[in-house]
């Protein structure tokens, strides 16, 4: 008796792929059409690239005895940052649909909530991936990674892992936003969730240069593995083994997507 029963009727049923694709397309279109958002996200990343890449440290960073340029090190971290920021905020975008009423139209449609949730998550993840690619290509063109023909293949190889990483990050935003009812909490989320996750991910400093307690925290932070896997692919060096990065990102993604789907099914508007 004590089980909380949702007020809303749910449609049981399988995923409907065409609906998922159209919902995802809606997110992508919204992204492409909102010029301000694209410009601001790129500008923010470029600012970080120059401030941290150029000003932070000119000393080469040594990992496993291999010395790499600090600009390349930071550039790959900033790419991961782009995924984190745009993924979480993209996931939080559900609030917009809730507040402007469009969510009602979606909820009354004869499709399961899982379909709606996955469509939305996929859309935001793809949109995040696009931003990630823009940053990565831009840093490559500027020359942060050095000029090398194999870079093209390495950048292409980041696409699948970038998508995997994005899905988990979008899941965070989705899970939170199903509980929110206004835009006021965005600042809190920025300060207490996104920023700590970013600073404690090793995006800007090397894992082996910080004290042990901080290393432990970084090992708990799933974002660290996203940063690490990008470094592995783009620079060829990493702190953790590739298989560990990949496993943790896959588990993280699956967990957060399930959590997001669960919260979405219990969402009240």
């Amino acid at each position, binding site marked *: 008796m004590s089980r909380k029963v949702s007020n809303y009727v*749910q449609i049981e049923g399988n995923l*409907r792929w*065409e609906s998922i694709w159209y919902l995802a397309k809606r997110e992508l*279109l919204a992204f492409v059409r909102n010029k301000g958002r694209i410009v601001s996200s790129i500008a923010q990343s470029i600012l970080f690239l120059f401030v941290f890449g150029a000003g932070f440290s000119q000393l080469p960073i040594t990992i496993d005895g291999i010395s790499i340029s600090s600009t390349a090190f930071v550039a790959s971290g900033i790419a991961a940052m782009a995924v984190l920021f745009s993924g979480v905020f993209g996931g939080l975008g559900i609030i917009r649909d809730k507040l*402007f*009423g469009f969510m009602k139209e979606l909820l*009354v449609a*004869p499709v399961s909530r899982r379909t709606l949730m996955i469509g939305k998550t996929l859309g935001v993840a793809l949109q995040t991936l696009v931003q990630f690619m823009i940053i990565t290509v831009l840093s490559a063109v500027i020359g942060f990674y050095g000029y090398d023909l194999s870079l093209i293949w390495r950048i292409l190889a980041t696409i699948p892992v970038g998508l995997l990483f994005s899905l988990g990050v979008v899941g965070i935003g989705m899970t939170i936003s199903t509980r929110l009812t206004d835009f006021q909490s965005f600042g809190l989320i920025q300060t207490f969730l996104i920023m700590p996750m970013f600073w404690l991910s090793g995006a800007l400093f090397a894992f082996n240069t910080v004290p042990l307690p901080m290393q432990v925290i970084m090992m708990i932070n799933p974002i660290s593995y996203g940063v690490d896997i990008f470094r592995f692919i783009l620079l060829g060096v990493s702190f953790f083994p590739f298989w560990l990065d990949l496993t943790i990102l896959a588990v993280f993604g699956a967990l957060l997507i399930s959590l997001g789907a669960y919260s979405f099914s219990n969402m009240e508007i």
Partner: protein
Amino acid sequence: MSDNIIEVKNLTKIYEEGKVLAVDDISFNIKKGEIFALLGPNGAGKTTTISMLATLLRATGGNAIVNSHKIDEEPDMIRKSIGVVFQEPSLDGDMTGWENLELHAVLYGMERSKRRERINEVLELVNLEDKSDMYVKNYSGGMKRRLEIARGLIHTPQVLFLDEPTLGLDPQTRRKIWEKIKELNSGDLNMTILITTHYMEEADELADRICIMDHGKIIALDTSENLKKELSGDIIELELEEVKDFSKIPNLIAQLKQINGVKEITMGTKHDKDRTSSEMFKPPPGMKGINPEVMRRKINEVLSDPKKFLQAIKKFPRTGQFFLNAPYQVKEKVARMYKESELVDDLPPKIKEIIQKINNGEYKKEEEIKEPSLTISCEDGGKLISEIIQMVNQFNSVKIKTIHMHSPTLEDVFLFYTGSQIREESSSRMEGIKKHIQMRQLKQK
């Protein structure tokens, strides 16, 4: 198969969190091809009812059949066979009109080949075919509403739910939407339409049958004609002048009810906001010599200075009486005047109490019924009117201000059933609901 497209049996909805009984055990049927209007004051349970029938909300008790599917068993089948236009806007402003409709068609499982044609059809139906490439955020209110109706029609539903479709639209647009609704209901489409509205003329114009809800219950259900017939005869509205002794009014009503042919009397009040305190003043009978102009100026003076008010009260005890009988606006003005002043302690205790109540926000405006109006429904107004006037004149302190007679409109029917008080969630009502829920829970045990 019966010709009912919607059958509602003992449908109940309790919002557990708020302990609100939103819909209380209602039953009704809607015939195929009918326009059915749900009327009711704010918070009567109309939207909750529609949400349950549209399978958006889960019913707490009872059941309903829509298009021969039960709402709790086959929600997806029902959703495919109904169109819903919500009370609040539910379009995506960042997509074009076309894209909004396309997404809807996809979600409702429409085949790719049929989509384009169907979207064009519904756009034409609401005359938006040349606006379909615009972003919805640039649409006007009426265009948005029309697009929402079009969207509700894409999957060719058999029933259309319209939750206050013309809310906040100008008269021209409303008329256009009425036309569309009639068009959908007639001819080959013959769509069944369930509409909620606050506009009586809208229900009168469109609906085949009207259902009046209040406090989650159905209190009247019939055609507009029959509902008006029930209030047959005429409506006499008596507006009374300021009543000094309010306790006489129930007595008056009781006596008026004795008159042969009088069916029902309801009482409401008219608060005139525009009138200022000094204009309220009329020389009392028996003091004809007073120049009202001078008197008004004096009153204004007294009402703007706490000291003068105090003096006036000490000199003329009548001033205190005047204050007690004054409308709320005047009392509030006086209360504000004494907010910062210590002179409040020198006032007579009764006045002091009222002023403190107002300043603490505890004063209830309901205590403030000074100019009641009586709505009397009767068989033959022409014959009775003189008798009614005589009866009222027997009461010394009650004076008729205006008298007005007309045959009943749907609005009269509505007010007759739901009362003319303004609806706010008053504490007493919440108490009633809480008790009701507790009773129910006891019964279930």
